């Protein structure tokens, strides 16, 4: 039985249809020009179909900011509930902010020890809002051996690459536990605190996970739900706090969005060439920079294999998730046939495309 190794791949670059599980995402994500504005210091809304790459772009954006070592501070806010309360989102953002701040401290534990007593107390006040409670988070900090363990337990990315958790982390857990908290902080105070104690210059709040909402509610209901956030865009922008929405395409024409001058909109759309590039980048990384086209593992008379695959997708299928699935099927067939080469008939087979809905 052949495997992808025989074709020259170090790993399967088409394994994950769900980008949140793909550890190589940062290495091969294709970012269409139109949505590069996501990384700018301004409020933006990225609109795409389910499977169109919103979450992948959100993760890339978050990683981009964490790579700045938090000087541009990312906060990922994915509403996990529904409520019509006016401050529902703000409470949610505060929890996410607290979680990110906790992970920042775990990433640079010695930072805490250099803070003023006032700074420590305020920080403790902020951390009281962490999801699952501060006690649980502190216990996780004590129990984890590596930052990756902590990331996995708390579901928040780290800001550094410390090789392991050390006595500084134990000390941090102890001192945080013993510290008396400042009175509860407002969200605005919490933003200011990050600047004061961490030296953060801007905060980027990434709002994602709203596709599911559209399955049960109308576009108008979604817009009404996020309206409190849209109302604070300009005020927050003046404080270098930028909201970045990852929204379903269905609301792209809504005046509530298009009439907002401070919000830049961009559609995350794909054509055949971009989809072919999605494949090429993955092939390049997975083959350890040996080749960047499936042509390299195809019969000599097959050319532009990835472009052919992209062209075979129906109009509504022209999405990264679909082309990844198509490649997955194609390579699976080749490997199962015990060959190390893609033949013209494999490409013909892949016309029997498998369409998947949102995962």
């Amino acid at each position, binding site marked *: 039985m052949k495997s992808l190794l025989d074709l020259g791949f170090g790993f399967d670059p088409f394994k994950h249809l769900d980008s949140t599980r793909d550890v190589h995402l*940062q*290495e*091969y994500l294709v*970012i269409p020009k139109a949505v*590069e504005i996501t*990384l700018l210091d301004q409020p933006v809304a990225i609109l795409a179909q389910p499977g169109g790459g919103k979450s992948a772009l959100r993760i890339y954006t978050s*990683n*981009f900011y964490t*790579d*700045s*070592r*938090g*000087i*541009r501070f990312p906060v990922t806010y994915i509403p996990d509930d529904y409520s019509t309360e006016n401050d529902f989102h703000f409470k949610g953002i505060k929890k996410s902010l607290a979680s990110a701040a906790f992970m920042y401290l775990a*990433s*640079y534990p*010695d*930072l805490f020890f*250099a803070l003023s007593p006032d700074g420590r107390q305020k920080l403790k006040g902020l951390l009281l809002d962490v999801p699952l409670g501060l006690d649980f988070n502190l216990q996780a900090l004590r129990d984890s051996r590596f930052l990756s363990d902590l990331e996995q337990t708390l579901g928040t990315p780290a800001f*550094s*690459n*410390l*090789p*392991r958790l*050390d*006595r*500084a982390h134990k000390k941090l857990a102890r001192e945080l536990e013993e510290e008396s908290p400042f009175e509860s902080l407002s969200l605005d105070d919490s933003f200011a605190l990050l600047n004061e104690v961490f*030296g953060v210059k801007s905060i980027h709040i990434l709002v994602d996970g709203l596709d599911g909402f559209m399955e049960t509610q109308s576009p108008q209901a979604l817009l009404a739900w996020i309206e409190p956030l849209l109302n604070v865009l300009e005020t927050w922008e003046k404080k270098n706090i930028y909201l970045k929405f990852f929204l379903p395409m269905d609301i792209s024409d809504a005046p509530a969005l298009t009439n907002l001058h401070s919000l830049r909109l961009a559609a995350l759309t794909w054509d055949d060439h971009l989809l072919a590039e999605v494949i090429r*980048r993955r092939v*390049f*990384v997975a083959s*350890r*920079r*040996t*080749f*960047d*086209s499936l*042509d*390299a593992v195809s*019969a*000599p*008379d097959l*050319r532009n294999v990835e472009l052919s695959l992209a062209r075979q997708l129906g109009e509504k299928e022209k999405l990264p998730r679909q082309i990844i699935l198509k490649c997955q099927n194609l390579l699976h067939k080749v490997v199962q046939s015990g060959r190390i*080469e893609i033949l013209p008939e494999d490409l013909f087979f892949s016309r029997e495309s498998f369409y998947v809905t949102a995962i």
Partner: protein
Amino acid sequence: MSQPYKIFNSAEFTDRHSEFERVETFTKERNRGALIFEGERGSGKTTFLFELYRRLNEQRELRPFLISLSPYSAPEFESNKNKWLNTDRSFQKDDIPVVLNRLASYLEIDSIETDDREFKKDYFARGLAYRSAQATPVLLVDSIYECPDDTRIEFEKFILAPILASERVFVILSGRGKRPIWSRPELRDADIIKIEPLQSNFVIEQLEKLNKQGKLKRDPSEYATIAYLSCGYPLIVRVMAESNKQLLTALDEAINIIIGETLPEREQKNLENIRPFIEKLALVDIPFRIPDVDEYLYGDDREPRAKTNHLINLLLESYLLRYEGKGYQLSQSIVHPIRKWLALKGRDSEYMEQLQQISAKLQEEYPSARAWYQKMLPAKTSLPNTVFHPLKASKAHYA
């Protein structure tokens, strides 16, 4: 270090006005960004970057810092604190803390105090991102494409990404071979400048200039031939001009240097065995795939595919080969000098005949790709008469 071509000497630098102008415009018109100089092996990227570093050191408003990921020597920068050079070995992941330490000290960065030595790397990287000094850092990194992927990824994570978080910063890189996929958008969208081979008349002018300075011992009548045979690649020019052997032998040596030093250490002693296959590949005029050339390379062998795979992997590892569009392509700084050398030695006819047969076979086997495989053979290398005379006359011209 015994190889003179791996020692930077600003006095011998072959000027590249337009490239310097590009850098000057870039740093004057922008606040931040990345520039990447790409070129073939021996095209002069390293020398250019070192000379750029020397010039940037003279500008008060900029804070250049040079990192060479390949072994190189620059005695004239010996006292400079703002560099990381190693004359004997390539850069490794373990060198990152040392570089960060030097960068932090040079850029006057305060980082978080810690008792744990293993945390320092991350704290320095954070300090780099939070840097608040007035002067603009310019980080120059040589041979970034050629280092192993895991080293490059670590380098990007700990050095490039944090420094690029600053509002005013320039990153200038150089590399050969296939462009890596960067994680940072600034690097993905970097301005790319190609370092092309030098024009023939320019090579001659430079050789004459060096001759007047008393730095060359070759007869000036040979300069045109050197310019022609080197195809304008400065490394080949330098090796040929400094050699005391006949021109053809000097070219042979230069080709060996250009190939040999890029091979992994374990294979360097096999250069003599590997070179004939590289010579054969140099004649393939289309981007090729392994099944296209295995019979041409190892037709008499029992395992032509396995041997071709091995050779291709070796050349990829040496960054002398890259996959580009439709297949693998050998570095042009090897292809053209080798074609000339083969033609002068009269060895190309035999290889061309074999290639002709393979081309015909592939055309027959894959009729839909006939037009493609018809282009497999290069045009016959024609050698101008002006080349022959100095070649015949060429002897050791050293005093």
